[in-house]
């Protein structure tokens, strides 16, 4: 399916340097950046999606369920989810920062988050491959990756218990900030990431780094959930749009 059939909607893109995107001017502490998402971006994948929050851009493609190859016989009755995260050379991070990002750990987090929604027992002896490519990194890319992966899985028509949205919060100078940018992430003393299940309202993953006081933590989780709720509505709308396109309407 060619790309040209899409009308590229309001791609929210702010050129660096031309416009100041500091929180003081543009955004409240509990406000998300404008989000844009779309499914079926990669023609050769079973399902794929693209998510953009201003300068953070993530693309995700799902392959599978594929038949298991190789001799390993573990977990034969359920599907194995494998996740790969990669970054472009021009993603905006310096080389030393790139090294600091523990990609393997992030891959594990995405995997675990996805395992909570995919009905793995429906796909015996198979593998579901999730490839995330961070095109540009301006903060909150891990949460963007999880949301994006959920979209791509739904697009690949893999059975899901429910939809999931993910959001993160940092604590910068005693102030909690929702959906942080890269600069805010660098300043922060602690961060919380929560993935939220849209229908049942449960939380499937909490990932905390740095220092946070007990009451700050509680506040932060509440804040992420409120952000994730907003994202979940967008995720659902995006999928509905795709559904209607598939039906030729």
């Amino acid at each position, binding site marked *: 399916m060619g790309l040209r059939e899409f009308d590229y909607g309001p791609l929210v893109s702010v050129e660096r340097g031309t416009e100041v995107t500091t929180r003081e001017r543009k955004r409240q502490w509990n406000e998300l950046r404008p989000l844009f998402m779309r499914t079926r971006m990669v023609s050769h994948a079973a399902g794929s999606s693209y998510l953009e929050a201003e300068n953070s851009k993530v693309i995700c493609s799902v392959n599978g369920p594929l038949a298991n190859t190789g001799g390993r016989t573990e977990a034969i009755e359920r599907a194995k989810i494998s996740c790969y995260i990669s970054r472009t050379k021009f993603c905006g991070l310096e080389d030393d920062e790139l090294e600091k990002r523990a990609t393997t750990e992030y891959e594990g987090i995405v995997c675990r988050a996805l395992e909570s929604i995919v009905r793995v027992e429906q796909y015996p002896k*198979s593998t579901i491959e999730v490839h995330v490519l961070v095109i540009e990194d301006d903060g909150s890319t891990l949460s963007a990756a999880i949301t994006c992966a959920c979209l791509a899985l739904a697009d690949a028509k893999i059975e899901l218990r429910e939809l999931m949205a993910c959001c993160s919060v940092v604590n910068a100078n005693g102030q909690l900030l929702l959906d942080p940018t890269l600069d805010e992430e660098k300043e922060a003393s602690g961060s919380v990431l929560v993935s939220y299940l849209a229908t049942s309202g449960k939380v499937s993953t909490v990932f905390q780094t740095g220092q946070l006081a007990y009451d700050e933590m509680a506040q932060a989780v509440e804040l992420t959930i409120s952000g994730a709720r907003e994202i979940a509505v967008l995720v659902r709308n995006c999928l509905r749009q795709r559904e209607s396109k598939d039906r030729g309407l």
Partner: protein
Amino acid sequence: MNEMVDVEVDDHCTVVVRAATRSRTEDVDRSSELGQMCVVAGDQIHVEPGFVRGRGTLTESGLLIATVGGVVDRVNKLVSVRPLVSRYTPEIGDVVIGRVVEVSQNRWKLDVDARQEAVLMLSAMNLPGGAQRRRTYEDELNMRSLIKEEDLISAEVQELKQDGGIALHTRSMKYGRLSEGQLVRVKSALIKRQKKRFQMLPCEIHAIFGNNGYIWLSEEEPRKELEEQGRNTETPKTSLDGRRRISRLRNSILILNEMSMTIHAQTIMDVYITSEQAGLREFEMLRQNVREQLIERVRNRGNF
């Protein structure tokens, strides 16, 4: 169809469905028309008590939840969700077309666009020199001379294993290796389920409609005596005119696929003939604006 259903999304992303009456002449909002039966993963499906859970759904504390996006199918009490685009779900007796991805000990593994690779056992195919003779070690060694990697095969689904495995057989003269033709891949859900999978289209092209969404087009009738002759026999080359007709058919099928319309001989020929009448060359058919005009004309013929 006066009865319409309104769909609203509340805070918790559950779908609230309420009946509304609209007349047909009114400008019906397309999204709510769609919402009548379309769901995305995680949506609650409203059902009468005593429903039976079907494919693509799951029950959680008495509620029916969709697990894939698609159209809600209701057959009496059975409620299931049918994805519009998905991998092929095999059923016994289906005719499929597959591409060989692996030759192992005594079996071939085929890609049939399903969740698992399909398996064609050496013992599930007729060998040269008598149908029912014992398979020897020599036969296993000669497997590549019959079918090798990247070959296309037509076969029938023989058995579905407990773990989702698919076993195929080619125990009939009509199945076997395919050559000298064109493969077209479409969404498997669009292929009409019909008795005759091997058809001769009115433009004198033979077609095999695989249930898995793979369609084979060739000028010659797909080879009948494959097993007897082995793969070394000469296949008559397709004529230039035949290639033109095959290309036109392929493009017609791709247009139907893109417009999500049912694919069978009738609909394909509708597009085929319309494109001929419009004076289009084969390679022009897939151009964006031409495609849209073409589909509009086909729709006006009234067969859809």
